[in-house]
């Protein structure tokens, strides 16, 4: 296992997912911390499966294009390039996309307390797949009528120690705070696994 100061040859890519229902502010959060303007990558899905391209002359049924907005943070000292991927807004499609989890460190589930149910699918998805996540409640217009504990209860989280952050997705400090909270959780888990 590489030690703390072992230099890597080249930067390794790592990935953190920014999830949550439609319109909660995922792209805003990505944009706030990303060193590049958010880029959009698209995938075409058919009702039959994921990533099937239709050929000329062949009709495809129920073809939908889903898009992920993502950003990048180069962490030179850590020799890592961190990609932040916003999961597609259409919940019913990205469940099929297990590749999203491939190599992901963890996730931030962003919620809008006015529409908490929109983020239930993201919570279920990560809990079922065992991907660690923290929750961030986006404060629209500076309002946040609920406490972290009320949000935690409403989400029925399996892990009662899941950090809940009240933040403004446009604030760099807030966004970084949520990311650091996720990293702290991952470090605690990794440390426990090593000594357990």
């Amino acid at each position, binding site marked *: *296992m*590489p*030690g*703390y100061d*072992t230099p890597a040859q*080249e*930067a*390794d*890519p*790592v*990935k953190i997912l920014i999830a949550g229902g439609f319109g909660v502010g995922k792209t805003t959060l990505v944009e706030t*911390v990303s060193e590049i303007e958010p*880029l*959009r*990558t*698209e*995938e*075409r899905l058919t009702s039959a499966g994921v*990533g*099937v*391209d239709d050929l000329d002359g062949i009709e495809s049924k129920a073809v939908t*294009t889903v898009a*992920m907005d*993502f950003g*990048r*943070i180069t*962490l*030179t*000292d*850590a*020799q*890592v*390039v*961190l*990609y932040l*991927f916003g999961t597609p807004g259409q919940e019913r499609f990205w469940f099929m996309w297990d590749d999203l989890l*491939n*190599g*992901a*460190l963890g996730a931030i589930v962003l919620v809008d307390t006015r529409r908490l149910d929109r983020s239930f699918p993201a919570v279920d998805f990560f809990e079922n797949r065992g991907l660690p996540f923290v929750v961030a409640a986006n404060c629209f217009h500076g309002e946040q009528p609920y406490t972290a504990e009320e949000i935690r209860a409403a989400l029925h989280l399996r892990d009662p120690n899941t950090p809940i952050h009240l933040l403004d997705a446009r604030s760099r400090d807030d966004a*970084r705070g949520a*990311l*650091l909270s996720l*990293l*702290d959780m*991952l*470090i605690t*888990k*990794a*440390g426990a*696994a*090593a000594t357990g």
Partner: protein
Amino acid sequence: MCSSPGGLAVAEIAARMHIRLTPMTLLLGELADRGLIEHRPPLEGTETTNVHLLMRIRDNLARI
């Protein structure tokens, strides 16, 4: 697009070239098969849970 020694994530190349993810992956696979590009796969689970790596990421993130 990718100047040495750095590289770009497949998604980033796809986004900048306005090509969808699956055809981009196929295209890059072809180039890799012909030895024209190098591909570094995502980190394995043992690497992404390496506490030293995570701490380095955390420290660096705190300073951005």
